[in-house]
């Protein structure tokens, strides 16, 4: 299972017993050589055993860490096992492995350290509900302004990373809505981030259970985190950073 020069698919999952088997199977169907690691973020519905039964490596967290902590666990796994490439897909099935070549292309050509699949890079794609759209637009504008690079989808968790990207996120990854702040982190560390347009499926299971008050709280928190991240000093990694 361990190897170098190989790719690992990191799948964070919280109570996705109904969807996780399909996600693991789809990744395997796309490329049987990919190793799949499911990070079970304190699920109570048997997500871990379903994933294991499909042949995925399972890292089960003892309690719910939240999406950032779960995803970072996956990056630490990738770094520790010496993978050179990692892709990240959410456990609810909204990311289609068939889109992975678009993400992997810029990394294989050496043009990027981290590639994000964006739902909004092409017009007329995905249309989320108004409240979500306001938040997404706010962060896209703010992050684009701060990083002086056009970013259209700051909350996308559909990503591919080379070893530098893996090492960066294994060492430092934010928590709630981590992708927004992570974009600034990538910029401050001078890694190359590229967005590519992808299509995403509607989530197969469950609602995005975020109430209005919670979204206001997250907006404030993440906005604060963005400005703090901009005010921090970061080490610029050398060619090969050992990470943690």
């Amino acid at each position, binding site marked *: 299972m361990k190897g170098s020069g190989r790719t690992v698919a990191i799948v964070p999952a919280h109570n996705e017993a109904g969807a996780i088997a399909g996600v693991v199977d789809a990744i395997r169907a796309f490329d049987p050589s990919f190793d799949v690691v499911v990070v079970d973020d304190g699920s109570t519905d048997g997500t871990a055993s379903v994933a294991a039964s499909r042949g995925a490596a399972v890292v089960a967290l003892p*309690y719910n860490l939240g999406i950032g902590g779960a995803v970072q666990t996956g990056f630490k796994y990738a770094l520790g096992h010496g993978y050179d490439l990692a892709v990240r897909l959410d456990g609810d099935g909204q990311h289609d492995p068939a889109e992975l070549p678009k993400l992997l292309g810029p990394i294989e050509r050496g043009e990027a350290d981290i590639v994000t699949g964006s739902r909004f890079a092409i017009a007329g794609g995905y249309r989320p509900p108004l409240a979500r759209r306001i938040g997404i637009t706010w962060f896209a504008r703010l992050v684009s302004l701060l990083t002086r690079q056009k970013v259209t989808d700051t909350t996308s968790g559909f990503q591919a990373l080379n070893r530098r990207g893996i090492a960066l996120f294994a060492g430092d990854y934010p928590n709630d809505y981590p992708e927004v702040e992570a974009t600034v982190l990538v910029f401050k560390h001078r890694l190359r981030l590229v967005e590519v347009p992808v299509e995403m499926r509607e989530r197969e299971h469950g609602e995005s259970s975020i109430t209005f008050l919670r979204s206001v709280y997250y907006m404030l928190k993440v906005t604060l985190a963005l400005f*703090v991240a901009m005010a921090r000093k970061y080490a610029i990694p050398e060619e090969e950073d050992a990470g943690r």
Partner: protein
Amino acid sequence: MTPVKISIAASAASLLLLLVVFELIRGRRLKERYALLWILTGVVLLVLSAWRGGLNTIAGWLGVSTYPPAILFAVATLFVIVVLLYYSTVLSQLADQNTLLAQRLALLEERAAQKSPGEKSGAVKEPAVPDGE
């Protein structure tokens, strides 16, 4: 009416609080999640300190006509109580998680000892802090 000196001193103190909180976050000694309440506290106190008319009006509503800055004190106390209560819930959650971690670690050690019998005495009995001379 609120004395001008008090308005200035209270504004400066609120600004100082905000500055210290920001620096703590920047130095990674305080997480944003736990800083939001402090920032809210600082902003509310700053507004009430600097906006003298507002403080006097609120004092009027509450019938504190003799000494409006008492409202500043009351609001600050209220926020401190809320922050403390919130921290108590955070502390409780941490205690629960800590228990869970200790249990998981102990169970893992037991399993590791089963798998490699040669190291079992060391793996299981090893004290957390090595004995000194």
